[in-house]
């Protein structure tokens, strides 16, 4: 389980997260929703160690992540799909996928994990030797998610995976992700602006506004609460 407690992050004088606390249970998707600039990206970047918080803690199964380097957090099986996918466009599709599980020792296991990613996202298999820069927006998102899964993570941080994806494709990816979550007991933190689709797959939802948590509730209840939806989610 991932527990975020009293997390406060500031860029210079700008407070981007203000005393944020919530937890992400195993085997379920937790959605983090909020408007532009709410602090969603800051939250995942802080969890994965790219941003140092001013205050607060992030516990993974009781172990403190704050203060560790991003590379050591990754090795604790926290996988991060960054905003705008973050593939390495100079490398081939296959090399990008291999990067996901590279820090693990067992070569055979690494290969199995990469093959699983191809099975999950068949369009990638057809382009494995090609440069990642040649992929479409949807394929890049698949590559980024596939690469994160190839690391066999315990925690998966997804920062707006819907960005640039067609609705159908997004639904497909979410469905595949949904079954993996239960199967592998993944803890998923799903950042979305597109609240409707995120709420349909998430168990729990956290709504951020200007760096503060304004609502934490079960996703279906939030989706059903018209007043909350209007106030914070714009639909």
């Amino acid at each position, binding site marked *: 389980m991932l527990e975020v407690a009293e997390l406060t992050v500031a860029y210079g004088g700008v407070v981007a997260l203000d005393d944020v606390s919530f937890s992400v249970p195993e085997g379920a998707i937790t959605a983090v929703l909020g408007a532009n600039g709410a602090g969603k990206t800051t939250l995942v970047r802080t969890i994965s160690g790219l941003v140092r918080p001013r205050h607060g803690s992030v516990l993974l199964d009781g172990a403190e992540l704050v203060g560790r380097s991003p590379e050591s957090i*990754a090795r604790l099986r926290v996988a991060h799909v960054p905003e705008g996918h973050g593939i390495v*466009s*100079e490398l081939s599709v296959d090399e990008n996928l291999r*990067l996901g599980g*590279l820090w693990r020792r067992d070569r055979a296991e690494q290969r199995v994990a990469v093959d699983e990613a191809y099975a999950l996202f068949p369009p990638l298999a057809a382009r494995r030797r090609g440069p990642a820069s040649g992929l479409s927006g949807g394929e890049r998102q698949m590559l980024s998610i596939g690469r994160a899964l190839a*690391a066999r993570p315990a925690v998966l941080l997804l920062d707006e995976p819907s960005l640039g994806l067609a609705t159908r494709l997004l639904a497909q990816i979410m469905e595949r992700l949904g079954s993996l979550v239960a199967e592998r007991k993944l803890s998923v933190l799903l950042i979305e602006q597109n609240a409707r689709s995120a709420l349909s797959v998430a168990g729990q939802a956290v709504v951020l506004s200007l760096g503060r948590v304004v609502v934490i509730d079960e996703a279906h209840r939030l989706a059903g609460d018209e007043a909350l939806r209007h106030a914070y989610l714009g639909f």
Partner: protein
Amino acid sequence: MRAFLIYTVDGVTNGMVYAAVALALVMIWRATRIINYAQGAMAMFTTYIAFFVIEHGTPFWLGFVIALAAGLALGAVTERVLVRPVESRPALSAVILTLGLLIFLEALAPMLFGAQVQSFPAPFSRIDLTAGGTQLYFSRFDIFTVGSVLCVMVLLFVLFQRTTIGLRMRAAAFNPEIARILGIRVGRMLTLGWALAALLGALAGLLAAPVLFLYPTNMDEVLVFGFTGAIIGGLESPVGAVVGALGVGLALSYVSGFLGSDLAPLGSLLILMAVLMIRPRGLFGMTRQRQV
């Protein structure tokens, strides 16, 4: 015809030494976006180390290997001590530091090893070979020069393209932030990259010294010619750097052979200007901007 062959062999041999330096510059540029102006001075210094240990009774080849190992260490230390602390500063800070290192090493060498010009032994004969009475225009040392640089280049290619450590190094160079969230220890990869580049430089130093003699600024010109080759190749492309440096070697050899050796540096400048005017990104430069 005979003169042409002689100049061609000369050009290729020198060009391979420039190519080693050019490739070292490109490796560091790709990994850390820094031009290492101390590349030549580092090679001079490690060659002095070889000279020193050989003078004190170490067998030649052991001294050779010691110099290569010293190159690895010097590259790693330079990255850790000089470059890493200014990592987040504008790239100019690190460039000025490499210039500082150049001046430092060129001042330190005469203090430690003496300022006089030394002759450095060649591992193989520099007298041109003959085959069945026919003059061949190249010596065993020429073969060794071309062969050893080619060999190291092939090894580096295999390392970068065919091994997981090479994949890690490329990922760290292309996109450090993504590499880090994938668990790659980017700092170590950069240190390793600098170390390997300095190893290549050290080889160039050892190959240049028998021809140029050994003195504190003996690699200055080699650095300029290697740099020219790297720029011609687009600074981003290892193959381009090698081709560019070979081109510089050949051009300089023809110019100094046919027109007089005083004109050689001018020739290098002219090629550089011509290439940059026709192809500002260099012959092998990427047409596409690097994507984030």
